[in-house]
């Protein structure tokens, strides 16, 4: 039973780590893409507004990713509960 629980937690942590790494990379790529776009606008009308817009873009994207990750963690939490309850039920049955 201990091994089942250990394997369950390890699997979930590995999944979460991979997912977080992917999101951080995607956000870094997005920031680089927006910076590249901004660099093409230097000297054009409203450049200062573009700087603010791109700052907002990266911040909003980060907030959206954070929520998506957090919702995924919550979903895993529900999965964890059901698996733990199943393990507990088996343990009780064996008592």
């Amino acid at each position, binding site marked *: *039973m*201990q091994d089942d*629980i250990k394997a369950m937690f390890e699997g979930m942590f590995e999944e979460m780590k991979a997912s977080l790494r992917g999101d951080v990379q995607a956000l870094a790529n997005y920031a680089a893409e*927006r910076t590249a*776009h*901004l660099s*093409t*606008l230097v000297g*054009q*009308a*409203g*450049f200062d*507004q*573009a700087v*603010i*817009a*791109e700052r*907002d*873009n990266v*911040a*909003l*994207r*980060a*907030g*959206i990713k*954070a*929520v*998506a*990750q*957090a*919702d995924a*963690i*919550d979903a895993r*939490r*529900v999965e*964890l*509960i059901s698996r*733990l*309850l199943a*393990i*507990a039920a088996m*343990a*009780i049955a*064996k*008592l």
Partner: protein
Amino acid sequence: MLRALRSKRLLLELIVAVVMCALSSGCDVGGKARDTALWPTIDTAWPNVKYDAQHGGAEAETLTAYEIAIETRDAQTVVLDWPPIKSAALTGIINQQQAGEIAIGVGDSKRERVSNFDAAVRAASRDPQLE
């Protein structure tokens, strides 16, 4: 045998503790992310989106009501009242371009912000029908 029973009992207690924690609202990671990461970015971007919407003919009353909804974290109103403001913001960007206030590329940056704001207000709501 007594030892085995005790070990199983400890494990069951641990499982119950984890389940209780997982069921408690303190473990609501999504809610915390919305409060600490998403809403503050909506707060920051809103005045700039509002500026574009004003240039697109959005009514002052509509924008004030929307601002209050953001301030009070009324996710449902923020999602439901967003579409006409979004349209006004996009129209406002075109108007600013046509007036020569901003270059086309700057308009692209602003349109990208409207798109991200759109995704953010949807993410602020947990209702799948609103998302």
